[in-house]
Each structure stands twice: as C-alpha cells, then as structure tokens.
C-alpha cells in the first residue's frame, strides 16, 4: 500500500460552494493523547512512532470500537518541531530495531508514514484507506471528514504527532553554516526567527488601531489558565505554573513585539481521533460530535510577508467560507478554538470570524473583558498552544470534549456548548472545522 497525499479536490477552498454536502453526516467520537515531554529521551518507548501508537490505541479504546472495524488512517507525515536529525549523526539502531521498519530508518523517529504505523499496529487488520494530510492536524481533519463523507472509509483514525530533539529551535542545518545556496539566500540571509512575520503583522495592527502588546496579557493569562485544566497538555503535566501578566510582559523578546511566551514551546506529543459516519457513531462509546463543515484557505501573500490588509481580507474570507458551508452564522458559535501558536495572530482569526460581533481592530479590547470559560464569551477554552505547548491539536480535542460534555475542569459553563470552530495555523493558509453537538 502506498499512501497518497490528499488531492486538492478534498479541500473546500472557495466561497460559493454552498452547504457542505456531508454536513452532519460525519462524526468524531474517540480521542487519544500520548503523554507529553519536552524532548525525546532516546528510548524506543518514547520515540514519535511509539507515542503515536499510544495515542491511536487510546482513541480506539475511547470510541469503544474493535480495531478490526477500522478501515481508514489519515496521518500527518511531518513530525518536526523545527528539530531535524543531523546529517551524519549515527542512527539509533536500538530504537530502529525495536520496531518493524520501512525503507526509511528514521521513520517513526523523525517522521511518520502510514506504512510504519500499520506495520507496528498488527491489530489494524482491515485498513483499506490511507492518506496524508500535510502540515498539521487541521489539514488532516479536513481530509478525514471529506474521506468519511465521500465513503472512502467509514471508521477512520487521524493522527498528528511531534518530535523534539536536543538543540535550539531551527538553529542547526543551514542556519549554522557560513553560506547559503543562492535561491534561499535571496530571502533567508536576514535571520528572522519563526515568529518574525507574525510579529510584524501584530506591529502593523497595533499602529493601525492604536493597540499595545500589553493588551495581550489577559489572553495569555486566560489561555494558560485553560491549559492548566487540560490534563493531556504539557504545562499541566510538567510545569503547572500560572502565567500572570507581570511574568508575560517581563519575558525576553524573540522578535519584538513577539516575546518568549508569544512563541509556543516545542514538545513531543501525539493526538489522535476516531471519525466515523454519523450513523455508525450512534453505536460507539462516546457521544458523537458532528462535523458541519470544513473549510480551507490556500491564499499566499503577494511578496515576502502577508500585509495586514492581506491578513484581514483572508480571515474575513475564511470566516465566510466557514459559515456558508456549515449553514450557520457567527451568532451560532458557542465558543471558538482558533489557532494561537503564535499568540499574536489569534486576534486575526477572531476578527475574521466576527466572533461575538467583534470587528477588525477590536479583539484586543475584547480581551480586556470576560473571556473565561465561565463567562458568556469564551475565548480559546482549550488554552491552545499557549496553554499546553506546541501541537496544533488541543483546539480540536477541546471542541470535541466540550461538545461531548467531558472537558472536565475546562468545561465551558457560561454558554451551552452546541457549536464550536477550530483550525489554523496561519491567518493566510489554513484548515478549519465546524463541530456540533447536533447533526442538524
């Protein structure tokens, strides 16, 4: 079996497509997370392949299905947080030999193929459909929802995992050398860190609307508070520390106006879900959460970095696509779980959605109001990457758990959890899912 990357036809990139043809006919049921860690410790049982198997098995058990009922598997094949296996570094043969191998010795260690997973999960005897959703879980969820809706699979696992090795973020490889090849040099000689582009969009936003970085503090505090109530998350598991405004604002700059906490902490993690048809989901162990729509943006900036104008145009377009395909309006959202890694772009997503009626330039003022899970306007109840570390998964897990009524200490109480939205990553270019407690 050779696993293809999802074709463009599986994504809903355009406006005017109408209601999604599978609205309410696909459901998420099971959730599985492996324990997090800051970095890989080199043991076979903690490599990215092993934690992925752990997460998948937990999702299967959570849904209460027999493994042989599963006929689909969607995987995000890239697992790096920015850490790569250095060229020439000896391969960890003890780890490699602990698993059934594919042709690539780093499969299961620094990347992940569907073939590796199937070779090491012998209980998955009936998987007929495999596909890659590149990038992050948001993408893979769109692929999974469409595949189940199209009948390519009826009971499908979807998984995203991250590996993190020793060393500083993105500081190896070409960045450590004395010279660059000519083509990447045209844009990469100036040394902007990963959050630089977002920092500039935020700087322009603050200049245009008269806002300040200090106004981010309530959002950051709220996100960490929610994350500490996420038992699957990194901060809750390893460093249960609140993030008070004074500490947030005193942290060192990475690319001013983005500071350390505005950059999500890279971790080892794996998150998995079990999707099925709405009909089959009725017989599973957890309450089904129905997919009302998935939408994508494949917009690219005109030049090096997205301008604020480009960001606002595209987030507004994304909002329209999200609502159109789901047949809902902003008023129907019980909560939002849009992406936050980097924290300084969460407000772009919020404003594009028009969440609680906010318009461009108003989100930071909104952050100064009650955005807690107890209030009427919950913002990022998952806590996102700010609250639980870099995964791009927490937002989706939270949507499912909130709508199932099993978000525990994180459960929203100021609103009735009926419809949620999650997705990302970047304001330009991303994938989004609308979740509902009801198929209607």
């Amino acid at each position: 079996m050779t696993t293809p990357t999802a074709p463009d036809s599986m994504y809903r990139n355009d406006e005017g497509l109408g209601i999604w043809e599978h609205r309410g006919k696909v459901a998420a049921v099971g959730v599985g997370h492996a324990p997090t860690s800051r970095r890989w410790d080199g043991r076979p049982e903690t490599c990215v392949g092993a934690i992925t198997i752990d997460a998948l098995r937990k999702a299967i058990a959570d849904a209460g299905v027999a493994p042989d009922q599963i006929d689909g598997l969607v995987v995000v094949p890239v697992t790096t947080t920015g850490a790569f296996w250095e060229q020439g570094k000896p391969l960890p043969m003890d780890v490699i030999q602990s698993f059934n191998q594919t042709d690539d010795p780093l499969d299961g260690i620094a990347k992940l193929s569907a073939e590796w997973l199937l070779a090491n999960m012998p209980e998955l005897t009936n998987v007929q459909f495999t596909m890659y959703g590149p990038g992050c879980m948001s993408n893979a969820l769109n692929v999974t929802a469409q595949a189940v809706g199209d009948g390519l699979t009826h009971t499908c696992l979807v998984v995203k995992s991250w590996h993190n090795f020793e060393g500083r973020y993105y500081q190896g490889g070409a960045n450590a050398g004395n010279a660059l090849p000519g083509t990447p040099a045209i844009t990469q000689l100036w040394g902007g860190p990963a959050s630089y582009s977002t920092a500039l969009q935020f700087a322009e936003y603050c200049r245009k609307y008269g806002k300040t970085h200090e106004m981010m503090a309530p959002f950051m505090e709220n996100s960490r508070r929610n994350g500490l109530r996420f038992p699957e998350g990194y901060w809750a598991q390893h460093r249960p520390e609140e993030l008070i405004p004074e500490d947030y604002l005193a942290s060192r700059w990475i690319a001013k106006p983005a500071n350390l906490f505005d950059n999500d902490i890279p971790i080892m993690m794996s998150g998995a879900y079990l999707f099925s048809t709405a009909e089959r989901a009725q017989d599973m162990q957890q309450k089904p959460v129905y997919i009302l729509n998935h939408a994508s943006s494949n917009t690219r900036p005109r030049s090096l970095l997205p301008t604020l104008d480009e960001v606002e145009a595209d987030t507004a377009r994304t909002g329209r696509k999200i609502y159109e395909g789901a047949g809902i309006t902003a008023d129907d959202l019980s909560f939002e779980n849009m992406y936050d890694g980097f924290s300084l772009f969460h407000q772009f997503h919020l404003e594009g959605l028009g969440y609680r009626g906010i318009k461009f330039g108003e989100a930071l003022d909104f952050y100064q109001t009650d955005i807690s899970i107890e209030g009427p306007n919950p913002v990022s109840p998952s806590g996102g990457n700010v609250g639980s570390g870099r995964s791009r998964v927490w937002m989706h897990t939270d949507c499912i758990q909130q709508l199932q009524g099993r978000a525990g200490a994180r459960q929203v109480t100021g609103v009735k959890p009926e419809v949620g939205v999650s997705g990302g990553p970047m304001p330009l270019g991303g994938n989004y899912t609308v979740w509902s407690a009801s198929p209607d």
Partner: protein
Amino acid sequence: MTKQGVEPDSFSQPFWDAANEERLVIQNCVACDRLQHPPSDTCRECDDGGELEWKQVSGRGTIYNYGVVHDCPVRLLQEDQPFNLAVIMLDEDPGIQMYSHLPGVPVDEVPVGSPVEVIFEPSDNGQLVPEWRVIDG
C-alpha cells in the same frame, strides 16, 4: 553585521551577478508585466508558464514595517543581536517587499514610512548583498 555567504545557483545567478554590479534586479513576468519577489519558476499571477525576466529597478523604496530580532536562528548574526529587521516596499511596486537590517539605524528606532535607497554590502564570502539605508531628509 556580516551575513552568511552566498553560493549562487543557476536560478539565482542573475540576481547575484547584478548585485555584484551594484544593480538591483527583480523577477518580472513578461506576459503580465508584473514584478514578483521572492522569485519563482512561474508567474504567481498568470501562471501561464511564460517567460520570466530579471528587471532592473530603481533601488528606491519605503520602510513598510519592522521588528527587532533578539533571538536569531542564524549563527553568524547572533553576535549582532538585537538588530533591526525591516521590510522595504519598492517604489516601482509597493506590493514587492525586501528585507533589510537598515545599517546605521539605531535598534528599535526605525522610521517607518521613511524613504530608503539600496546599497550593497559584502557577505561572508564576498558576494555583494542588497541592503537599504535611510535617505536623509
């Protein structure tokens, strides 16, 4: 601050050759007469697979935006932290952006909106690299 050296490849050779002659060239689509940067194999606007040329531009622009880099992933630049990293809009087409460290501008005192002109600075292996300096009022 000295940037990493550049090893031109066949695609980028015209850009870097022009830089060594202290000329700034930007890729242009012949069919739709539209500049694009960063350069690409095809025109991102008309995408018809037509001819792309390297077009010399005036080397004048405006500071559009900036940040201050305190934690740079590029080893050679780390000793110069913190440093300005600005985005320049070209006069010929404000939609075209280029990066600049803005030599001579104090850290975090970047005059957004000010006019700039291109200069060329040697990188670690001597290849000249386009940079930008503020035009005094």
